[in-house]
């Protein structure tokens, strides 16, 4: 199934009788494999871009690459750094803004700039009864009614099919610097990242890579970035001596690889785990990953573990774990999304029943209870 306009999309959904999977660019592999596929690539195109107001409006099927080209011409960017997971998930195709929004895909800058959901200003979508619904708008501050924009962001299509997204963009930066710190134990890497993130020096990325090195990113006008790098040298002195990388190409590649979790390309079960940063070392200790990277200052663990291992059962701390990549056997045994506590699962199920009364959208993808 394919819609080339919102009206067509609404008609399709109104007439649908069997569940289907929603597909933007197909790069994130989240939809269920069963059922028909509804393609959103026909709902494509940037309809509004006001660089002076930092806002863009685009059809849900608009490729991220097209958006990035338009933004880069005005020296702006998507500050939440949506990941390109094609390498790590072994997918092809073009990531779309609708897919990014539906999965709340946020990269390393999530800790400073915010998540995808924080940049979404408005949505248009078609609910399961075929109603076209809009929420939010294209202005940066908007508390007019309930914030269904947030609800749709990260709903993975289970509440409606997005047709249009308005979002906030930010200026690109003059330069970035990467600070590197080596030879620390896991708990000390998190402590070092916390010290940097808890400083006044606006760190926009804090990672412990798969080899155990701590990488910090500073961005902005050159003089400012260099000043802050020197300040952080003293802040981090108790943890060791930092090396500053200022080659822009090296820095960009490095953070792109982190964003896209490329160190995990071509392996087994891959988990993305959100925890309180200081809990990360303990989680690593109990899940014993074959390979792990800590992003978000420790708050996001990317972990490759033995096939079929239930990371959620072992975590032992508050947070959630999403199974990003696994064999069919592992997926059959472990749900993709973290089951919710019963009272929340009940609310979520209630919302799905109201927004998708015929259970059409990505049925069974989310919503398990603990």
């Amino acid at each position, binding site marked *: 199934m394919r819609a080339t306009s919102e009206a067509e999309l609404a008609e399709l959904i109104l007439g649908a009788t069997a569940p289907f999977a929603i597909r933007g660019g197909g790069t994130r592999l989240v939809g269920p494999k069963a059922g028909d596929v509804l393609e959103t690539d026909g709902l494509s195109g940037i309809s509004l871009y006001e660089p002076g107001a930092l806002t863009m409006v685009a059809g849900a099927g608009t490729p991220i690459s097209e958006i990035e080209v338009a933004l880069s011409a005005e*020296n702006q960017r998507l500050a939440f750094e949506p990941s390109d997971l094609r390498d790590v998930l072994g997918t092809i195709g073009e990531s779309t803004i609708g897919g990014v929004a539906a999965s709340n895909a946020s990269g390393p800058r999530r800790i400073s700039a915010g998540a995808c959901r924080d940049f979404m200003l408005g949505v248009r979508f078609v609910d399961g009864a075929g109603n076209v619904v809009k929420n939010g708008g294209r202005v940066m*501050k908007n*508390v007019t009614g*309930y914030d269904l924009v947030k609800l749709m962001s990260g709903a993975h299509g289970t509440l409606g099919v997005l047709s249009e997204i308005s979002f906030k963009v930010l*200026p690109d930066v003059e330069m970035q610097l990467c600070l590197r710190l080596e030879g620390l134990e896991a708990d000390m890497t998190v402590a070092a990242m916390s010290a940097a993130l808890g400083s006044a020096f606006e760190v926009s990325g804090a990672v412990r890579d798969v080899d155990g090195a701590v990488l910090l990113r500073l961005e902005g006008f050159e003089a400012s970035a260099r000043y802050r790098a020197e300040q952080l040298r003293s802040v981090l002195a108790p943890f060791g001596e930092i090396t500053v990388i200022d080659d822009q190409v090296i820095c960009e590649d490095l953070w792109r690889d982190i964003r896209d979790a490329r160190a995990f390309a071509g392996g087994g079960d891959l988990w993305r785990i959100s925890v309180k940063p200081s809990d990360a070392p303990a989680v690593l200790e109990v899940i014993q990953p074959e390979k792990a990277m800590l992003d978000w200052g420790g708050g*996001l663990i990317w972990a490759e573990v033995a096939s079929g291992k239930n990371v959620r059962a072992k975590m032992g701390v508050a947070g959630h774990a999403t199974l990003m990549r696994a064999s069919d056997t592992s997926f059959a045994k472990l749900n993709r999304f973290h089951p919710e506590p019963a009272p929340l699962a009940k609310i979520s199920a209630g919302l799905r029943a109201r927004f998708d009364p015929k259970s059409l959208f990505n049925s069974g993808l989310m919503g398990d209870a603990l």
Partner: protein
Amino acid sequence: MDMPRPDSIVLSRKAELVSHLLDILPEDAVIHDEVETRAYECDALTAYKCPPLLAVLPRSTAEVSSVLRICHEMNVPVVPRGSGTSLAGGALPTADCVILGVARMNDVLDTDYPNRVIRVQTGRTNLSVSGAVEEEGFFYAPDPSSQLACAIAGNIAMNSGGAHCLKYGVTTNNLLGVTMVMMDGEVVEIGGAHLDSGGLDLLGVICGSEGQLGVVTEATLRILHKPEGARPVLVGFDSNEVAGACVSDIIKAGVLPVAIEFMDRRVIEVVENYAQAGYPLCEAVLIIEVEGSDAEIDAQLSLIRAIAERHNPVEFREAKDADEAARIWLGRKSAFGAMGQINDYMCLDGTIPVSSLPMVLRRIGELSIEFGLDVGNVFHAGDGNMHPLILFDANKEGDLELCEAFGAEILKLCVEAGGCLTGEHGVGIEKRDLMSVQYTPEDLAAQMAVKDVFDSKWLLNPAKVFPLDVSELRRAPMAAE
């Protein structure tokens, strides 16, 4: 302002309700004397008043849960209240409601600097959250202008913003988790010190739901280290258009100030008379604040100066020291008070795309002449969040109604320009009946469906946000039961 007819059954069961509440709360936490309930008859939208049936002041999540269980059982509407600073009537009672005030729940539960979060009870005031962490150099970023008084509970309910949200975002961007009591008394935990949701983003829809989905009793908030310093500049222009263009150029240039505030001629004149801040008497003044080390501030300000000079400002004043910085902010900070000295005023809160600023300001000027009411504009220009202040005389017959009609026209104008009815104050009762200007019946039905799920009897703050005729069928079964 229409409000639903009080439920006569609820009114007739007041004594029974009081008795149930006194079983679970200490005597001083149940306010049912008709003189004392008057303290809760309105919030900061003082044009509308109605004493509640009674008010309760619980001290714990467990007490809130017990109160809600009783009210749910007896079909009594509940209006949650933080500090009562809402400008939109978010905490306005109905005669048949229980006001649930969280003011006594104001403890800091946990401060966690390594993870950059603080856990508080939601009756705590906004400013005292920053106060609790300032010794370590941290702060809580959202800064509504009522921050000395307003409670985190209300900030979450209204998704409050502030002058510095251009850089730091509004409440929803700084809220990581809540403990919330559902209308039937069930206590739910959502989010925490970790980021984002593993399932649906329920936290995202709870923030800004105006106390209609549950009563938030505890919150985990993101805290940040304070910048090394901050410095404002004042730039005067001889036209609104040029000031608007300057804002747009600054943003396009890649500088992201923490605040860009705008005042028009009417406001400048009034604050000069009132506070003598030494502002230039011109058509528009911008106050732009940047942060960082001294050198970083100098660099940003020289860029801003270069951009501003392309627009021929009548004045560009940089603060040389803390005293001058305070003087630059003095006028802006006293603007509302100064306007209040002249007359009563109504403060609107529509948001527009920054590019529409000149058109919207011009049209507001025309409307001011049509309605014969004076208006001043002071607002957050960086994000297009306007605050037109319409002056009127509350003692003059018909003036309030005229002012409301004028306000409605301005808000419609904001929506037409691609903006919205409210950027940070919330809908409450004030903008309730204009919701249909911005949203279609389907749009509103989708929002109301969320309330159906959280509060199936529509007992929580039921007469707010949605036009009464639109929500009538949902509210009706409750009265009929």
